[in-house]
């Protein structure tokens, strides 16, 4: 029982019960301690149920009684099956309390066991970290501005915040494999002029954002490419480079088509004036509507880039002419402004003139091409008519000598048919082997196709497997790491190993005892067998002797006497055995009774009865006091 009590006390201490060091068994528990332990356990098991229970016994007797009743009810609600009432807490006896505490301790939620059973995900760890950080920040008291230590500056007086503003960064590209040809100028630029990434931006605050953004961008692009390659690229049976170039040409073709399609209506309106940007936007809109979703991005950005570029150029050309003089005189500035306005006006006029001219030019060129087309057509018609005329001329020349000419013609026709037949047979001769060859080649080709498709499927399955196994490996690694951290975080309970050792010892003890018990059992069995044997032997010998003696007893008087003695002997022996057995049962009963007495002694009946009497007197006293009060009131 000592081991059990130690475990119980350890568990109760963990729950928050103040068990003093001297107490090392349940026997020494006082009523107050029992109540406190039980209430703490209930509070942990079911916070809703335990919140209404006081952790200490009140001084008044009737209040004590009530607390005992509510505690007993709470225990029953939690699922304690044994007998329980207020007396369990107020007039405790050791075994009952022990069984109650054991039940409660078993019902305690095992957080540690649960967390190790279900491996928590990354997000849970992160959330825990966040919770810990919030807790730490909550624990720091707020201080006025002037009293802040460097410790709480971090959380309480943060410096200025910047929004996430990413800007493009330039990086010299990595040359893969053998040195690719690079323009010398470009190389020089990268080597000598391009500043390091951290110095490229004028605002240092957006540097971090830009770097992170760039990295994420690269990562996501790689991921997207990976996905696309795995889903479509592998099926196309091309090398990645070929696949890319093909996609590029496809895209370009599409762009061209769309532009052409959009240009037809646009060119009609182009005669009226210059094409404005809205036209371009409409064009883009038609584009987006019809283009595939993944194509939009590239095209859109391309267009916006070019647009931006032209705009920037314009604005640059506008801003450039501003003289950078340092004079601050207002009239100079005014004059400059005026000049600027005039120049701008002139520029705009020139622009519009240019636009008009280009439109006119286009118009003229269109009419020009139309005219050219018409000319070509008429030329064609003329040549056709000339041909016809020549044929007719020849036939007219042949008409006077018609019969002769007809014969000649027939001869010619026959010769040509013969030649034709000849040629056909020759063709056949040549064709047959080629056809055979073609068929065999085709077959080989189809075989190759089959094989390659099989290989493709194999490769795909391999890819899948690789991905799955890498994922698994990563997951397992993460879990391992997490478990390691959890292990480190776990309280280094030395008693754990001691407990297991003790449990092992106990188990070995039990094993030994079991062996002994089986030995004793087998011994008793053997004894029983021997006894049975002996009684059987006895019975048989008695029967045989009885018979023999009985036979002789009819003849001889002395034999008859001996027969009587025999019978008497047998009977007294039987009696003797019976008495021995009876003493055995009585001894057993005595032992039982002794045990009962011991347990009754353990229940502290006498002292408990005395306490009950005292408490009863107390209650009576309280009641009479209350009655007196009532009467006074």
């Amino acid at each position, binding site marked *: 029982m000592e081991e059990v009590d130690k475990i119980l006390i350890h568990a109760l201490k963990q729950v928050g019960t103040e068990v003093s060091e001297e107490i090392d068994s349940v026997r020494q528990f006082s009523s107050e301690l029992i109540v406190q332990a039980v209430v703490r356990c209930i509070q942990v098991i079911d916070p809703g149920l335990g919140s209404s229970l006081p952790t200490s016994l009140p001084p008044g007797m009737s209040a004590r009684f009530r607390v005992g009743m509510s505690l007993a009810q709470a225990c029953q609600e939690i699922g304690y099956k044994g007998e329980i009432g207020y007396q369990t807490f107020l007039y405790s006896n050791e075994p009952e309390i022990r069984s109650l505490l054991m039940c409660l301790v078993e019902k305690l939620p095992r957080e540690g066991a649960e967390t190790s059973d279900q491996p928590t995900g990354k997000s849970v760890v992160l959330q825990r970290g*966040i919770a810990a950080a919030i807790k730490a920040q909550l624990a720091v008291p707020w201080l006025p501005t002037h009293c802040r230590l460097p410790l709480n500056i971090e959380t309480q007086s943060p410096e200025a915040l910047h929004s996430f503003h990413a800007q493009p960064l330039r990086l010299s590209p990595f040359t893969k494999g053998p040195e690719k040809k690079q323009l010398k100028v470009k190389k020089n630029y990268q*080597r000598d002029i391009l500043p390091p990434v951290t110095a*490229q931006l004028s605002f240092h605050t957006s540097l*971090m954002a830009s770097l992170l953004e760039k990295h994420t961008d*690269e990562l996501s692009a790689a991921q997207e490419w990976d996905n696309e390659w795995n889903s479509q690229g592998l099926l196309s049976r091309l090398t990645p480079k070929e696949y890319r170039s093909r996609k590029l040409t496809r895209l370009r073709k599409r762009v061209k088509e769309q532009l052409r399609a959009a240009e037809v209506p646009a060119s009609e309106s182009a005669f009226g004036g210059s094409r404005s940007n809205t036209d371009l936007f409409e064009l883009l809109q038609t584009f987006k509507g019809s283009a595939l979703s993944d194509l939009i991005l590239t095209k859109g950005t391309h267009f916006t880039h070019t647009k931006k570029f032209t705009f920037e150029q314009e604005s640059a050309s506008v801003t450039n002419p501003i003289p950078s003089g340092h004079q601050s005189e207002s009239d100079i500035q005014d004059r400059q402004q005026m000049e600027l306005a005039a120049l701008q006006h002139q520029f705009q006029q020139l622009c519009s003139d240019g636009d008009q001219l280009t439109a006119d030019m286009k118009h003229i060129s269109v009419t020009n091409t139309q005219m050219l087309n018409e000319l070509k057509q008429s030329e064609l018609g003329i040549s056709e008519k000339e041909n016809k005329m020549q044929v007719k001329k020849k036939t007219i020349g042949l008409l006077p000598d018609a019969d002769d000419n007809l014969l000649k013609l027939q001869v010619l026709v026959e010769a040509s048919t013969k030649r034709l037949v000849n040629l056909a047979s020759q063709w056949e001769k040549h064709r047959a082997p080629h056809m055979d060859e073609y068929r065999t080649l085709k077959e080989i080709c189809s075989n190759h196709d089959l094989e390659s498709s099989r290989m493709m499927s194999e490769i795909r399955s391999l890819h899948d497997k690789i991905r799955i196994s890498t994922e698994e490996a990563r997951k397992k690694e993460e879990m391992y790491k997490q478990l390691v951290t959890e292990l480190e975080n776990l309280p280094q309970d030395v008693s754990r190993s001691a407990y297991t050792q003790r449990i092992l010892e106990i188990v070995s003890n039990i094993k030994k005892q079991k062996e002994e018990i089986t030995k004793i059992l087998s011994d008793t069995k053997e004894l029983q067998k021997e006894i049975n044997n002996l009684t059987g032997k006895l019975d048989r010998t008695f029967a045989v002797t009885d018979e023999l003696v009985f036979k002789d007893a009819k003849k001889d008087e002395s034999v008859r006497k001996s027969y009587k003695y025999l019978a008497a002997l047998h009977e007294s022996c039987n009696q003797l055995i019976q008495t021995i057995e009876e003493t055995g049962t009585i001894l057993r009963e005595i032992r039982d009774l002794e045990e009962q007495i011991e347990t009754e002694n353990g229940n502290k009946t006498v002292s408990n009865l005395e306490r009950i009497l005292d408490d009863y007197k107390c209650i009576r006293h309280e009641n009479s006091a209350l009655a007196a009060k009532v009467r006074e009131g």
Partner: protein
Amino acid sequence: MELSESVQIGLRSFADPSCLDHTVFPALVDASFRSLLSAHGDPGVLDQPELQHIDRVLLKQSHAAAATFILEATKHNADRSTISSCLEELNFSAERIEIFYNTYQTHKKELARLLASIGKRAPHVNDVSWRLQYHIKNGQVDKVNEPSYLISLNTENEGSSEDVNFTCTMEQLQDLVGKLKDAAKSVEKASQM
């Protein structure tokens, strides 16, 4: 912690003893951290005497990769094991990992502070003063008898303090107080995960 291909290549050349020998490595690590932490981008950050004889293109690439890696590590609040496993994959020797990790550890707090300065924050309420007004009657109604509260919140944002003034009825004030209590409770709940 995932790294893009360009960063991986840059870090590989960073790790390669034939590209950067052991005198250059700590200098470049230091330069990378310094360039991230200095308030204005210094174009001469790679012009140290130790780094003079290295190919500039390679140096810039390695520097960019290292800067990106440092930022990612800080963003993920990476611990020693994560960083060392990451760098081991990129052929870093144990000695170089040690150098890198020590420098990272010394600058980690400042980097985290810089990263935390990206974002937005509502002003912090430091103090409150209030006044109760009792509205007895007005031109139209003889008996109004309604209390109204003049609240002045003393807030602090980025070191400068500012007062937020408003009036509210009792219900509105109760609503405000309830909301504030809810918020406090939510924070407390979030801390007890």
